[in-house]
């Protein structure tokens, strides 16, 4: 019964953002009575595709069919009216209202011109009962856990004439029991005839729940598979955009191995973490970083890479474990502390956490150094220009002058500016979160060469990237992360792309 006409069919969807091809000719089909997962790395185009489907963006070309009829929703509301509903990771409800209201607001049962609270509460209980949930619906939503909040969001959708339910990263903040409960509900809804689109970064969960998988990579359609016909390892390979056979043939980069073997002056252990962890963000882990080391953090999106970096830089406070800097136990509970201890951190979110768009490139570069020096010891303009110009030159930042604002730079150059900011402080350790993301190939290579150069000078580098081949090429060792925990550390012969993938797929 399944392989009839799809309820949703998207054909040759194309969407271009300034400078980026977000989706190019992507096809997608969604069937009734099925759970369909979309998989892909960062920048694969998953969220853009969803946003086109739900009317947040409008496609540049291509068509969407709902039950065979061409549709073109121009807002989330329009999509909802067509029966396409989305439950987001950050639950889009009003925490200050009661559970019942969250289900019914906007379509409250009325009696004598006023809201009939009794009927509303009763109906809410009924809807929730369909999801096997029995809670006090008159309580404020904020009172309940995120898992319940998600159920309420689903309940709100159920009450209307939903045909398609999109679940965007619903499990990322749930514990195991809650996930199980959610999956039960999803299966029930699927069997009731709903078409469900499920987006997650958790591989295991995809295999637990999805009937069908569509893989995207760099905005391109890679393929649509039945879950049982696609082994986990192959899925990972597809997500990385390669054939499985390619991996086995990929040999370790001999030259680089030599380079790391005759490694530079060994400055000993720069930083180590013992049992460092934070509940809900990353499970306790051990880590050692030596001078001249490039430790790659490999894992899929949402595996806990960024969380690990943020813990080490003091952005999020650890709730257990210790950090040792050069063997001395050091409390790192703010970025300022981390900086003083000689650590630098380039965030993956350049726009919101890195670049000061309205400041000049020079100011962006000297900012961290200036903070370390303190307010009073202001670097003279001459000195600032000297530092900025030197780094602009050595990193090859393409700008007419250091006096242009950072907003005028391309992504890759902004990345270099952030790198320059930390290099100016002459750090011991650099944490680079996705420094190669969203920048062109040439710039990528430059940044990777830079990382190798730095490590030769005795710096310890923590390098995070979604591209396993980049991680392999740059790193001396690789820590593999999965589902918010560090699961292995690979080095030497094991350190290959397929090695990493086997580790992630096989648990070991």
């Amino acid at each position, binding site marked *: 019964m399944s392989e009839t006409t799809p309820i949703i069919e998207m054909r040759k969807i194309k969407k271009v953002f300034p400078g980026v091809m977000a989706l190019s000719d992507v096809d997608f089909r969604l069937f009734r009575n099925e759970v369909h997962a979309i998989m892909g790395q960062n920048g694969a185009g998953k969220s853009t595709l969803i946003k086109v489907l739900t009317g947040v963006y409008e496609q540049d070309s291509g068509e969407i069919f709902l039950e065979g009829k061409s549709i073109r929703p121009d807002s989330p509301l329009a999509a909802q009216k067509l029966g396409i509903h989305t439950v987001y990771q950050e639950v889009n409800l009003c925490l200050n209202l009661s559970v019942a209201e969250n289900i019914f607001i906007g379509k409250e049962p009325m009696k004598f011109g006023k809201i009939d609270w009794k009927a509303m509460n009763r109906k809410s209980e009924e809807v929730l009962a369909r999801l096997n949930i029995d809670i006090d619906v008159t309580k404020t939503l904020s009172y309940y856990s995120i898992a319940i909040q998600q159920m309420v969001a689903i309940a709100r959708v159920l009450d209307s004439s939903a045909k398609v339910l999109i679940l965007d990263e619903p499990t990322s903040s749930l514990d195991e029991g809650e996930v199980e409960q959610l999956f039960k509900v999803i299966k029930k809804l699927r069997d009731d005839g709903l078409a469900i689109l499920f987006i997650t970064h958790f591989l295991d969960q995809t295999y637990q729940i999805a009937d069908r998988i569509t893989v995207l990579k760099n905005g391109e359609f890679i393929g649509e598979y039945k879950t049982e016909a696609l082994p986990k390892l192959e899925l990972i390979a597809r997500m990385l955009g390669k054939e499985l056979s390619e991996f086995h043939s990929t040999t370790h980069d001999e030259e680089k191995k030599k380079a790391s073997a005759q490694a530079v002056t060994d400055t000993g252990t720069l930083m180590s973490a013992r049992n460092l962890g934070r509940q809900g963000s990353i499970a306790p882990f051990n880590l050692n970083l030596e001078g001249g080391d490039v430790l790659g953090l490999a894992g899929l999106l949402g595996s806990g890479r960024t969380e690990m970096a943020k813990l080490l830089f003091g952005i999020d406070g650890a709730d257990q474990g210790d950090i040792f800097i050069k063997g001395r136990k050091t409390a790192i509970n703010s970025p300022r502390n981390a900086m003083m201890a000689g650590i630098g951190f380039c965030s993956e979110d350049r726009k919101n956490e890195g670049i000061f768009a309205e*400041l000049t490139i020079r100011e962006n570069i000297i900012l961290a150094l200036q903070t370390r020096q303190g307010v009073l010891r202001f670097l003279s303009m001459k000195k600032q220009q000297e530092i900025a110009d030197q780094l602009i030159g050595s990193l090859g930042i393409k700008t007419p002058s250091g006096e242009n604002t950072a907003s005028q730079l391309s992504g890759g150059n902004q990345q270099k500016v952030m790198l320059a900011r930390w290099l100016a402080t002459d750090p011991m350790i650099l944490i680079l979160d996705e420094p190669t993301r969203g920048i062109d190939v040439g710039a990528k290579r430059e940044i990777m060469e830079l990382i190798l150069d730095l490590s030769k000078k005795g710096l310890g580098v923590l390098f995070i990237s979604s591209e396993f081949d980049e991680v392999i090429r740059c790193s001396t060792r690789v820590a593999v992360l999965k589902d918010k925990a560090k699961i292995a550390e690979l080095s030497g012969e094991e350190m290959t792309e397929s090695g990493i993938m086997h580790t992630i797929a096989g648990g070991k």
Partner: protein
Amino acid sequence: MVGWKSLTRNKLFWPIVALAILMLFNLFFTPHFFRVEIKEGHLYGNVIDILKNGAPIMLLAIGLTLVIATKGIDISVGSIVAISAGVVAMLIGGDLKGVPKFPIPYAMGVALLISIVAGCWNGLLVSRVGMQPMIATLILMVAGRGIAMVTTNAMVVWLYAKPFAFLGQGYWLGLPFSIYIVAFLVLLTAFVTRRTALGLFIESVGINPTAARFAGINAKNIIFGVYAFSGFCAGVSGLVVCSTVMSADGNNAGLGYELNGILAVVLGGTSMNGGKFYLLGSIVGALIVQTLTTTIYAFNVPPEIAQVVKALVVWIVCLLQSGKFRSTFAAMFGKRELSV
């Protein structure tokens, strides 16, 4: 052409153009507007009056500029002006022979100290307790006027201590003395913010608080500091106000200054969204506000009606700074980009 472009890009350009247009209007429509006379070695005239009467707002605007640069707001400045005026008046005392109760410098020092404490209170609520700036300073705006009234026992205190009058009424080298206070405070602030890294840090916090934290900047201390400084500036302004009229009226001193101050800062090119700040721009902004007021006076319109015009100006400036308005506007008149 290139020169022209870089000129219009200069943040001071548009405020000065606005001021020039206002002046030009006065040149044609207000008789004797630009006449400056010399009496007893002092300069007199409308233009000098603008400088003199604008001084309190200019002083406030200096502190407000830094607060607004951090994406904050301080609406308690008017009340702090009243407190500062009240305290200095009570300490000097209304002795008819002009004998001060306490030495004048001591009285001024205490008034400033109390103003700084008031500013610190705002800073504490915003940076440590984490209240929205508007709400935090609202508290002092309400209570501050009460404090000012209680300090002066709800009476208008008249002062007769001659030396104190010099602050707001005196002349030095032919110009009102208050202008020198403004100049001194602007230079001092410019020096402290631009000759140290403070200005850069303030702008960083205003532009991108998260990135600033990640770059190791202690945003809390910076934010605390700018509110304390705003309190200080309002205190100085209060002293000048009190000295100009030689009286302290807890009810009316500094009434509505917060709007004038914010208007001056925003007209001067500092955005309400925080970021880059322009001290000289704020001074020009204050001059625009004062010229506007003076112009309306010159037309024999009741002075209070000036408020209607100012309110309209605020709405217009807000619209011009709103991205949404600009895009709507741009869409209406073709795709030309508006730069303000």
